[in-house]
């Protein structure tokens, strides 16, 4: 049985898998199967497979779908391909190398919630990915895979691509809805949740692109197979990436729950000569640092949570001993401050403030009081104190850095005290 359902068909030359190749590998069989089932049973199959969202929060996908009311009326399915979390480079690969997998997944998701329109929301920088998807879409329409009668069945579906103007906040699902509607992309208050009142006021599901790519295979090969792929309670494989000073930075599809050690030492070939591992962020810029002592933690949702971080996007960022962790945190907070949408005060004011304090520290203009100020900022921007999760995400690397790299912060603070 297949062990790399998401990336197994990738071509060596890096070009996109063609429709013919995709068909030959069982492509669109999953959609065909879904269309022969009642949408509720499609949802059940995905629930049984224990697929959890790959967009960062790990919400069970089938459960999310089940909140969509069964009443008639327009509904929307949205694929989130905004991918702007620094350190993350997985969804791009999936779009560029196997675009039909994305389309089949989107069609299955749309069918499962009774949507006849789907959007793929792509970050504006991903022009090549958009091109690959557009070409695949054109083929799919031509072959009757999409349109008025999907695969000849009594089900109509249109899929549109939307190229974003490029802001990190657009990846937050309610800001994404505003972006798609042509409003200023700030997040919306919840409730109502998008599943009840989302795009254009209609029931809407937003799923991450990697999440969606799992759907064809769950349909085709079933929950039991899907559960057997992983090493934990949740099903499936995961795209894991590594960036930073390792020998072979890259992206691999591995069993969900593979340990950080296997990923860093075996897949990424260990640290570059002369570099020693100091810490790593397990899943993008907004995840708490972990230490070498955490290398044997399985990178699944619950295990990473248990050691005080998040699986996030599954793309690891490696900090070596040669690099200053305070400066790394400054780089991270500079990103978050720039990307704050400006809607709520703690984040709009707090992130630039945090950045300034860190900049002063690094420039030797800081003092010990600054460390308390940073701690206060973490409180101001704790979960629940801001309108969306951007600010708490920004505080995650800072709070873990203050805990793990205290001496580095102290050293800077000492410089300005005298």
């Amino acid at each position, binding site marked *: 049985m297949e062990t790399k359902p998401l990336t197994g068909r990738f071509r060596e030359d890096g070009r996109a898998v063609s429709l013919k190749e995709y068909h030959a590998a069982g492509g669109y069989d999953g959609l065909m199967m879904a269309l022969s089932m009642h949408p509720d049973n499609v949802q059940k199959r995905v629930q049984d497979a224990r697929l959890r969202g790959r967009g960062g929060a790990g919400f069970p996908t089938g459960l999310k779908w089940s909140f969509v009311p069964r009443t008639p009326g327009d509904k929307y399915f949205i694929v989130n391909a905004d991918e702007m979390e620094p*350190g993350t480079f997985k969804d791009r690969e999936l779009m560029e190398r196997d675009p039909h997998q994305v389309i089949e997944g989107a069609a299955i998701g749309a069918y499962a919630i009774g949507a006849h329109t789907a959007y793929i929301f792509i970050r504006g920088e*991903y022009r090549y990915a958009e091109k690959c998807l557009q070409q695949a879409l054109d083929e799919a329409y031509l072959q009757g895979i999409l349109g008025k009668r999907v695969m000849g069945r009594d089900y109509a579906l249109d899929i549109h691509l939307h190229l*974003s103007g490029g802001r990190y906040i657009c990846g937050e699902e309610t800001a994404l809805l505003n972006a*798609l509607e042509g409003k200023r992309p700030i997040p919306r208050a919840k409730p109502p949740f998008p599943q009840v009142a989302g795009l254009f006021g209609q029931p809407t599901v937003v799923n991450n692109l990697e999440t969606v790519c799992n759907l064809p295979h769950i349909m085709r090969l079933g929950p039991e197979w899907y559960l057997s792929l992983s090493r934990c309670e949740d099903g499936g494989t995961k795209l894991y990436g590594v960036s930073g000073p390792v020998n072979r930075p890259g992206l691999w599809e591995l069993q969900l729950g593979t340990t950080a050690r296997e990923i860093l030492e075996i897949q990424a070939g260990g640290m570059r000569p002369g570099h020693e591992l100091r810490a790593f962020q397990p899943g993008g810029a907004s995840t708490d640092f972990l230490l070498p002592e955490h290398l044997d933690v399985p990178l699944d949702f619950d295990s990473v949570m248990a050691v005080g971080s998040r699986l996030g996007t599954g793309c690891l960022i490696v900090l070596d001993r040669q690099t200053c962790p305070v400066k790394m945190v400054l780089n991270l907070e500079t*990103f978050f401050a*720039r990307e704050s949408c400006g809607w709520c005060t703690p984040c709009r004011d707090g992130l630039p403030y945090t950045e300034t304090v860190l900049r002063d520290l690094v420039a030797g203009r800081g003092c010990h009081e600054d460390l308390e100020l940073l701690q206060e900022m973490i409180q101001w921007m704790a979960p629940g104190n801001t309108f969306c999760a951007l600010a708490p995400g920004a505080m995650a690397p800072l709070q873990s850095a203050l805990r793990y790299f205290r001496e580095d912060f102290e050293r800077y603070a000492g410089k300005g005290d005298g």
Partner: protein
Amino acid sequence: MSTSSLTPDEITAIRKALDTYLWPEAAAVDALYIVQQRHGWVDDAKLEAVAGVLGLSPAYLDSLATFYPLLHRKPVGRKVIRYCDSVSCWLMGSDRLAASLRERLGIGEGETTSDGAYTLLPHPCLGACHQAPVAMVADRLLTGLDPADPDTLLEEGDGN
């Protein structure tokens, strides 16, 4: 409202984008991209013309245009260089790359050279962190850059 600063092709493309969505605001970003393609940026006359086609106020359209860094409301150079300044590229020397670009061009971040050839912009993670440091010139992604060598980026696209 005058639409004379748009070409017939641009107007057709914008009308087509309108069909994709339930209401005209939703086509705004698409429409601005369409117009930006020809001149690299969107001036006031074109912003007003697009607003006219969409039936929106220019002020509303501007509030969107100014939110998005990929839409330019100021002139840019013939080549826009966006180097990634996010964490993985920073770990692999993006600040040295930025310094060598600034030095070579004699401009700072966000500026355009006086001959109108280059605009230099820092940009968030370009989604190619395993090939850091990276940058984009126009729509093209360049990976595995040498931080000490600004010329690869400056020469990108020449002679094609």
